[in-house]
């Protein structure tokens, strides 16, 4: 039983079965799990077996997991990275209007975001993006699964954030 999402391909290799057979078996398992205290979910680009949310209390009494807390600042910053990635620190700061160094370090430590390269341009600033663990922690199959932002929200078009409410522009 894997601790990380397992892809269809990995399962095919392991079971020597065809893709559609694996898929059918997975769908069957997904349907059956609910009554048995576990669920099979498609997250982070693969399949992951987890405890059923109905059993949450029991599981927590057994595992005694540390309380996870995400501050408002972390979430806003994470949202900006998730929706606008690849994104630079300067872009995030101009959107949030405050320094984000501390928050970015925390998010990196918790493995929600990672450095994914450097931007071509002056200073070659580091570009940040979300991790596979982020997808898993937020129950997403891929970044495309994020709910779309309402109209008028900043988006990235051809490399720049549009509209550009950036303090940088001043």
């Amino acid at each position: 039983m894997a601790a990380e999402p397992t892809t269809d391909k990995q399962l095919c290799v392991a079971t020597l079965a065809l893709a559609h057979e694996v898929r059918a078996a997975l769908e069957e398992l997904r349907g059956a799990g609910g009554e048995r205290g576990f669920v099979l979910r498609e997250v982070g680009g693969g399949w992951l077996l987890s405890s059923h949310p109905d059993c949450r209390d029991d599981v927590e009494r057994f595992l005694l997991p540390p309380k996870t807390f995400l501050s408002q600042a972390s979430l806003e910053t994470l949202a900006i990275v998730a929706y606008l990635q690849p994104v630079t620190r300067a872009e995030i700061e101009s959107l949030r209007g405050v320094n984000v160094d501390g928050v970015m370090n925390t998010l990196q430590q918790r493995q929600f975001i990672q450095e994914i390269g450097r931007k071509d341009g002056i200073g070659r600033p580091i570009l940040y993006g979300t991790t596979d663990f982020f997808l898993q922690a937020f129950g997403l199959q891929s970044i495309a699964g994020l709910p779309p932002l309402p109209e008028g929200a900043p988006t990235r078009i051809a490399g720049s954030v549009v509209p550009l409410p950036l303090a940088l522009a001043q």
Partner: protein
Amino acid sequence: MRLGPSPAQGGYAAGGKNVWSSRRRVRNHPSLCRLGKGRFPIAIQASSPAARRGALLVQLDVFDGPLDLLLQLVVRQDIDIARVSLASVCEQYLAYLSLMEALDIEIAGDYLVIAATLVFIKSKRLLPPPPPPFTDELACEASDAEEALRERLNAYSHFKAAGSALRERFDRNSAYYPRPPPDAVGLTQRYMLDASTLAAAFRRVLENASAKPPVIKRDTYSVIVKMNWALAFVRRHGPLAFSELVAGCQTLEIIVTFVAILELIRQRKISFSQSHAFADITLAPAAKNHTEHLAESA
């Protein structure tokens, strides 16, 4: 209502820093009088034990930067960001900052930038347009500034909302527990060791430590030596190309010579010319009077 005596005020007097000279007026401003009525994101508790000791306990909502504060003030007005007059929240914004200061909360520069913008927008709102033939050149700038701030506020509000949506998603998803990743225990390696191996290793370390003292190797080429040599050479042989100077040298020696030449040029002991990029560099002794002039000034 008055902001009564508080330890923080004493701190303010002692600190003596004053950002707004009109602070006292701001403090007594009507916008602060709305403190207790929920119009302002501050609540004052007068019935706590601290209040009976003469101290005033003020509870502040924590804002995540100036945009967050401004957004909350706008939202409290129940007006769309696109239509709200930012000048109307200027006073409340300033009042909040002055309260932060009174409480000795460090105000980041970011807060002040937006405060300045708000005051600018508001001042332009309040002043009547100048009579013709004069024109107000800053009028456009004020509306531009308001538009820019509105845009930032709008962008921020979207990500604030997206952040809350992420929180819900995270909380919902926290109900699922996958198998935890294997911890480092599985990776522990076992070695067959006994005390004698350890003693032998320690002895080796001691021997190595007491061995010969470390020797620092002299630099093969020194920039100073090269500088003296290059200056003498250029002075004796007149204008010559850099390539002649380093003819037959190894890479390291060429680099050191180049650094030496750079230093000589910086000290204006040598002048240089180059017809185009990557062309050979012609070196000549700097004009004598110039060097002397420098020497005198130094």
